[in-house]
């Protein structure tokens, strides 16, 4: 029986206690200091307006970092430098952020920056995301940064204004949950599959009001990009944040990144990061254990991320009106095999699965294969850095010769507000994070999966696993 030590603190408690400008009382929330504020064009304009109304500046411009990602076209500018904006308003929104960053002295990774990227891909690449930090952004997938042992969560635009003005937020202490993931993920099973499995088990509001720490052998075995995928999807279970304690894998990922110190200063920081791990005996309001070795490649079939099955399983019977409605929206019947379902589009990208390891995984499936003739496939790197790395490895050529489109970095078809969208009634297999009704465009139907599975579906032209298309030598001869 582990001793419940009142002095023992969890990773979350260490970060919570370490950032209190004022503690929470019975009448007032805590005032929490924010170490890093990430900003993008969609959720910030009205936040900057608060500064103008108050006649004040950004309190800590050095703790604020901006990028262009949501409304931005992923096709290049024409010969006159004109970008194919979806609307004038989208262009104006980006200009507004450019103007705001200039006016308030904020580092913006705009069109000319070699670091521009989807906000949750760019932050870690620059080493702006560091263990022990509090990180916020007007974006729910800010939970991604928890992979580094940061307390990172999404906020609304009013709060974006609060942080710009005061570098602080009013917060009530959330509850804590630890999910122990024992065992090892099987071959061909990814962090995306693990995340979909967890959300399916705890439900899409199973984490509401909680910060989740992922622990156990399966998490320790994940590389940083996989941990980011896992923490990214935490909000899909309703949780405020997901976290993984820093370890040697975290340190090795961060060493040498632009925003980090070098030499002994880095090693000293690294030693402190290792102290952040939850103490033995630390208290959690909820604790769950799952056996990661039983997780298989997963795919969603409904209209929320909790509605997932193993690839190859049949559509389950609806147990509520909302599930019934979801099946009807997706044009699926209980008991139906998903393999019968033709697909129209495949999207590889997003803050969930738009990193270099995700692109390599998709490329590995497409090597010496072609996508089905009726399928349109978009590959959208998560950042300029991912794009460069992929092009150096020849992945752009590989995707193009397989029949896919290679695009510029951005959120693209995950949120479908830049013109990249799934047409009404069409079915997409997507590596993004949400399969809500109309998420990828009005009337779109989304099935969420890992890059491996999504690429396999592109080849098969229907729902299929990588294992299945590997063995399907008649239509897809494997040359490697």
């Amino acid at each position, binding site marked *: 029986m582990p001793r419940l030590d009142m002095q023992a603190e969890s990773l979350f408690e260490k970060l919570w206690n370490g950032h209190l400008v004022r503690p929470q009382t019975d009448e007032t929330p805590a*005032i929490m200091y924010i170490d890093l504020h990430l900003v993008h064009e969609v959720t910030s304009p009205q936040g900057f307006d608060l500064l103008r109304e108050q006649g004040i500046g950004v309190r800590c411009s050095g703790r604020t970092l901006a990028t262009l990602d949501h409304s931005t076209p992923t096709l290049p500018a024409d010969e006159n430098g004109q970008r194919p904006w979806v609307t004038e308003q989208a262009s104006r929104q980006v200009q507004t952020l450019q103007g705001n960053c200039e006016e308030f002295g904020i580092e913006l990774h705009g069109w000319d920056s070699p670091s521009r990227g989807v906000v949750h891909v760019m932050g870690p690449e620059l080493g702006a995301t560091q263990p022990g930090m509090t990180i916020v952004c007007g974006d729910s997938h800010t939970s991604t940064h928890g992979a580094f042992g940061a307390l990172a969560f999404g906020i*609304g635009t*009013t709060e974006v204004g609060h942080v710009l*003005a*005061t570098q602080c937020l009013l917060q009530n202490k959330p509850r804590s949950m630890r999910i122990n993931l024992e065992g090892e993920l099987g071959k061909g099973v990814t962090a995306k599959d693990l995340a979909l499995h967890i959300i399916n088990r705890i439900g899409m509001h199973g984490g509401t009001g909680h910060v989740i720490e992922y622990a156990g052998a399966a998490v320790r075995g994940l590389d940083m990009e996989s941990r980011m995928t896992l923490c990214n999807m935490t909000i899909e279970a309703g949780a405020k944040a997901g976290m993984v304690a820093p370890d040697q894998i975290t340190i090795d990922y961060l060493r040498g990144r632009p925003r980090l110190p070098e030499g002994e200063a880095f090693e000293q920081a690294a030693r402190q990061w290792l102290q952040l791990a939850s103490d033995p005996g630390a208290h959690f309001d909820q604790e769950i254990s799952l056996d990661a070795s039983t997780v298989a490649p997963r795919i969603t079939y409904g209209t929320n991320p909790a509605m997932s099955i193993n690839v190859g399983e049949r559509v389950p019977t609806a147990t509520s009106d909302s599930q019934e409605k979801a099946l009807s929206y997706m044009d699926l019947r209980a008991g139906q095999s998903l393999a019968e379902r033709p697909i129209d589009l495949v999207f590889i990208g997003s803050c969930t699965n738009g990193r270099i390891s995700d692109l390599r995984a998709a490329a590995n499936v497409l090597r010496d294969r072609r996508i089905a003739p009726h399928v349109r496939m978009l590959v959208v790197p998560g950042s300029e850095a991912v794009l460069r790395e992929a092009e150096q490895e020849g992945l752009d050529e590989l995707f193009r010769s397989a029949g896919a489109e290679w695009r510029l970095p951005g959120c693209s078809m995950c949120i479908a*507000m830049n013109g990249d969208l799934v047409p009404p009634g069409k079915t997409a297999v997507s590596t993004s994070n949400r399969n809500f009704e109309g998420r990828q465009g*009005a009337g779109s139907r989304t099935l969420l999966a890992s890059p491996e599975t999504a690429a396999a579906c592109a080849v098969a032209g229907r729902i299929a696993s990588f294992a299945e298309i590997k063995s399907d030598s008649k239509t897809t001869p494997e040359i490697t």
Partner: protein
Amino acid sequence: MRAFTALSGPILVLAEENIDTDQIIPARYLTVTDFDGIGEHVFADWRHDAEGELLTGHVLNKPRARKSPILVAGHNFGCGSSREHAPQALLDFGFRVVISSEIADIFKANAQNIGLLPVVLEAEQHARVLEMDGEEITVDLEHSRVTVQMADRAVQHWSFSIDPFARHCLLRGLDRFDYLSQAEPDIKKFEERL
């Protein structure tokens, strides 16, 4: 922020569970740089057909929708994206209160920040109010309670819990920013330790 003390009015029920912020306002309406008139796009894809024609039969397109200050929604309302455009659109459309048996964290914080009152009721009470579409109820923040008249005309008071500071600010129409900015000396002190 407009103060909220109490109000009585007819409720509008959207009984679906897990109504996410992409439903409340689809992403293509997020390219705005202010929130003026954003209520026009609330539940845009529920209120229009594939050709963009208004579905006159939808409850949100009935004249009573704009006259209902209280939205009652199924379990886990406001999940998904952090877009404040969602509560802003509901507020601009005319709602002042959202009632559910569970409301997602970020949506709830956003709503409280802009003066849209989120009310979480017990499952049993929630189930009953879901059956009362169009009927008048009272939401009283001063006493943190919802008052309903049952079919047998008996009046019931249901208390709800709400974060005390959010309640304090809503009752007085106080902007939470003012409290934060008054903490400046403490923020400075904290920063000196960094």
